[in-house]
């Protein structure tokens, strides 16, 4: 028996959406890998895009930014441990589309069906969370350090200055209202670039509560019917290189030296750590 499940991956620019796809496609096709969801076979679709992503990922090169307009449809045929087959499709949407929803308060009609998926992966880059900061706290800190408050040219308000958590809360609220409201949905919240935040010694849920408290409250207190769970995800395991800048890092070489490329992946659920990048998807479709 086979069923088709539509997932959407959402997230602000540079949250790691394409890297997740690359690592996922590599891992389910890596010989010998043991995952909650495994590769079931190719359909008649075009895998050029996915293969290109996975190739770049394996070589330790950063992904190119997703095309700023239009979605690239990605479909994978997977099966679970008892042979239940699922066809998972998710368009590779550029993060700019989501940023535009916050900043310009509009949505391309073409995204409508994609964003009405009953299960969503939300990626938040744990390394680039912009937390709110206040002038008065800055003044107090300057005084404590015995330095003057630096004179700066004031900046006009613009939507992009908002804290990360505010943008994400609004994105989720939009997905639960108007044309996008389909009722209850499942949400896998992945805090990406986990290798950069794990040094804090906190679990993903604790990172959510401490670094994204507004988002945490919004999800926890359940005004909108999200069924959600949070993971930490390092889909690269460390820094990748940009070939266009001729970058070369010893850390990337160490990742390349690992026996299996999938060993670079780290998926953190509470205190449990694994390299199985399919676990959040399994939870989403369960």
């Amino acid at each position, binding site marked *: 028996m086979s069923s088709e499940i539509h997932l959407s991956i959402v997230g602000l620019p540079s949250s790691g959406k394409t890297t997740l796809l690359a690592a996922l496609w590599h891992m389910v096709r890596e010989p010998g890998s043991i995952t909650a969801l495994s590769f079931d076979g190719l359909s008649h679709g075009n895998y050029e895009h996915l293969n290109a992503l996975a190739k770049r990922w394996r070589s330790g090169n950063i992904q190119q930014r997703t095309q700023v307009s239009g979605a690239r449809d990605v479909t994978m045929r997977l099966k679970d441990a008892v042979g239940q087959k699922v066809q998972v499709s998710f368009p590779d949407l550029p993060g700019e589309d989501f940023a535009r929803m916050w900043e310009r308060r509009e949505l391309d009609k073409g995204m409508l069906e994609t964003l009405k998926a009953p299960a969503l992966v939300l990626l938040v880059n744990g390394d680039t969370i912009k937390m709110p900061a206040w*002038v008065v706290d800055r003044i107090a800190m300057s005084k404590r350090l015995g330095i003057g*408050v630096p004179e700066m040219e004031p900046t006009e308000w613009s939507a992009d200055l908002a804290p990360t958590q505010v943008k994400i809360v609004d994105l989720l609220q939009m997905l639960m209202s108007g044309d996008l409201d389909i009722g209850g949905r499942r949400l896998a919240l992945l805090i990406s670039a986990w290798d950069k935040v794990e040094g804090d010694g906190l679990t993903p849920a604790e990172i959510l509560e401490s670094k994204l408290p507004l988002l945490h409250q919004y999800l926890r207190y*359940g*005004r909108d019917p999200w069924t959600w769970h949070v993971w930490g995800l390092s889909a690269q395991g460390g820094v990748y290189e940009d070939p266009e800048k001729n970058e070369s890092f010893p850390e990337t070489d160490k990742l390349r030296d690992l026996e299996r490329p999938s060993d670079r992946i780290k998926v953190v659920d509470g205190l449990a750590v694994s390299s199985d990048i399919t676990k959040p998807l399994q939870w989403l479709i369960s």
Partner: protein
Amino acid sequence: MATKALTCGNADCNLASDRKCVEGYEIDECPHAGRISIDDIPEAEEPDTVVTQPEPTIALASGEALDRYTASILQRRLVSRSIGLIGPNDSGKTSLIAGVYDLLQEGAVSGAAFAGSSTLIGFEKVCHLARAASRSAVPHTERTSRGSDATFFHLDLYQEGLGLTSLFIGDRSGEDYLAATDQISQADQFFEIRRADCITLLVNGAQLADSGLRHEVKAATPQIVDALVEARSIREGCRLAIVLTKKDSVVASRYADRVQKDFDGLVKSISESHGAYLGEVKPFVVAASPKDCENVARGEGVGDLLLFWLHASLPPVALGDGADRGFERMIDILIEKGTEN
């Protein structure tokens, strides 16, 4: 040196090839020589680039502060509380709105947790000048424009044991409220006051600490309440929070004790004048967006005020026509009346 190619405007002339004029003129004298034949002009090519039509878009909710009608629609969704903020210019109304929202950025406030908001853009705008991202040297909030209709900031808040409550905080220019003390008919336009479960009167602590301004504050502030009660804009039984704002300025002043005494006097005076008409009257002292947090914490006192707002409830009011309004829903009161223009 290259020879310049000869051309002729006469299509039958072979001047370019045989260097002879078909009409027998000397080349220098031929009126057509040197002109470009219409046949020589290349046809314009269609541009290669295809003009792509922009993708049709769907407008999303603006996220700005709400007008009265949109607020009324949202008030149907959950149990709601409507707050009317009144006070003279610069008494700190916008700072208080921004302060409540900014405290929620860091976690629940006095047990009230953020559960959603349809006015996040509006909140972000009023918070901007207090945020480090603005690069302002001093925390500040924009003044609400005079003469504009009141708008509402919306927060859904969750409290353990009480569940979800929608809070709608009305915002209007302080100058408009002051105008009601000059002409009581001005109060007719204050729909946000008539719909309020709780009125919050702000008293500018910084001005009360200023010897040149304190008497004006002491005189003008109760007059606003007098006018609104007289005009029946404030409903009977409505609860009143009287809030001393800008605690940081009060604490930093050498008149802190005098300010407290003046404020207590104000509260006593209003209670005596209107206590029988109003529900509970309760004083608060806040530092919603202090310019300095050496002696006060940012947001100090705001949590207590927020709880007062959330617990505010208006007992049934028997109106003049003798009709029992006890079973009337709040929303029916909010969207009623031809007088609300």
